[in-house]
């Protein structure tokens, strides 16, 4: 999707990790196209079904999304009876089904366990929306195909390039590969620890103490 950010026309797709320490994104983006989600507890109504009606979302469409996430939830449930993680997931689904083209999620993965992180990653990757994610650097690195760093200007590139060229905290997986490559290995950066270990096995040597 083509977005205009700070008078630049940029083609964005998929999930983009945002580093925006000075909160400048909203100065640069057309607010009519973006849905900003930074709280996962506040709902306009008291039940899932009434929330769907509020946002004009077809309950059957919503139920199909629940199936994609492997969730079995009664849409007549009251939010007060649901766990924090389920409320977060419902908020994400409603946001994806909304009519905005771009969704910014802040602190999405915090306090989610492995299972919910996995399902949400898959769900957002297949959502066909531009997802901007402002979250902890490790989760952003795993899920994002691009990183966007916003200062007075905007730079968008592969996560590894943005991390390398900016004074950012290094994600664990990136750091591991960088440390190994500094020792002379030639591993590809990967979002999957198993792939990195496969690389170590292929190119490295077993160390027996």
């Amino acid at each position, binding site marked *: 999707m083509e977005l205009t950010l700070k008078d630049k026309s940029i083609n964005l797709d998929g999930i983009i990790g945002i580093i925006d320490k000075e909160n400048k994104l909203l100065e640069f983006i057309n607010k009519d196209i973006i849905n900003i989600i930074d*709280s*996962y*507890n*506040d709902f306009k109504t008291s039940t899932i079904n009434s929330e769907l009606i509020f946002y004009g979302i077809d309950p059957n469409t919503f139920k199909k999304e629940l199936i994609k996430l492997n969730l079995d939830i009664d849409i007549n449930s009251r939010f007060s009876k649901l*766990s*924090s*993680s*389920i409320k977060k997931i419902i908020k994400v689904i409603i946001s994806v089904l909304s009519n905005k083209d771009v969704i910014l999620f802040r*602190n999405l993965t*915090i*306090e*989610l*366990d*492995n*299972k*919910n*992180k996995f399902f949400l990653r898959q769900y957002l990757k297949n959502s066909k929306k531009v997802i901007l994610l402002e979250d902890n650097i*490790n989760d952003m690195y795993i899920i994002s195909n691009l990183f966007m760093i916003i200062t007075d200007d905007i730079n968008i590139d592969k996560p590894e390039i943005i991390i390398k060229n900016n004074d950012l905290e290094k994600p*664990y*997986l990136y*750091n*591991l590969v960088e*440390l*190994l490559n500094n*020792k*002379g*290995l030639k591993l590809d950066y990967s979002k999957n*620890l*198993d792939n990195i*270990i496969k690389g*170590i*096995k292929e190119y*490295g*040597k*077993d*160390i*027996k*103490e």
Partner: protein
Amino acid sequence: MDILNINSLNDYGFSNFNLSIKEGFNVIIGDNNSSKSTLFNIISCFYPTDNIVSINNQYMNKDNINNYIKEIGIVENLNKFSFLKNTVLEELSYPLDNLGYSKSLIESTINDKLKLFELDNIKDKKIKELNTLEKQKLLIVLALLHNPKILIIDSIFSYMEDSNKVIEILKNNKINVLYFTSSFNNYDLFDYVYILNNKEIIIEGEFKDIINNKILKSTNLELPFINTLNNKLLEESIINRRDYNIDRLVDKLWN
């Protein structure tokens, strides 16, 4: 000595659930279906029980609720909390005024607590002028105003930029904490860890003693990266001894 006890909780889906909390920075870690929130709500009096939960020998029951409440300070997440007043000073004075503190005691209490968290400069500010970290620290100050025996904290450090520093302040001042989270962030500062899984404590102990327990695999918890890395390298027989220093571990992998 135990400061918090739960004896045979058989309500809210728990079955013969027991818990003993000692002094220090205690952490209950559980995945998203473990019922952490329910337990938090029970200990915080949001879900009533009758002579099951005690803190500092004060039992939670209908007749003793006021005494029980004095023993706890509750810290919820910022997005679940609404400040009542416009300024920091008004917000902090309000509960102390209700407790009947004198004006001079209110002032000294507020000054002491704010200083503890390096918040001296916010006393006269409006709450809407505070940044997120200042608001988060203010929640902790609010919970500490009446010198409770223990702080019951819900996942706030996962959302806090400077969390290690704030936890160190709590520990250095010997403030007892029971912290609920899904994350092992800040694990090096935990004194004692309880793993809650499906309404049961399945492991407890110091972090170093529980983190390699195979039972953890039955949960959906995300272990610290260095532990996951060691586990996988051991499984692949690439190393035969754990090393929790990433530089040393990399040295072992490739010299």
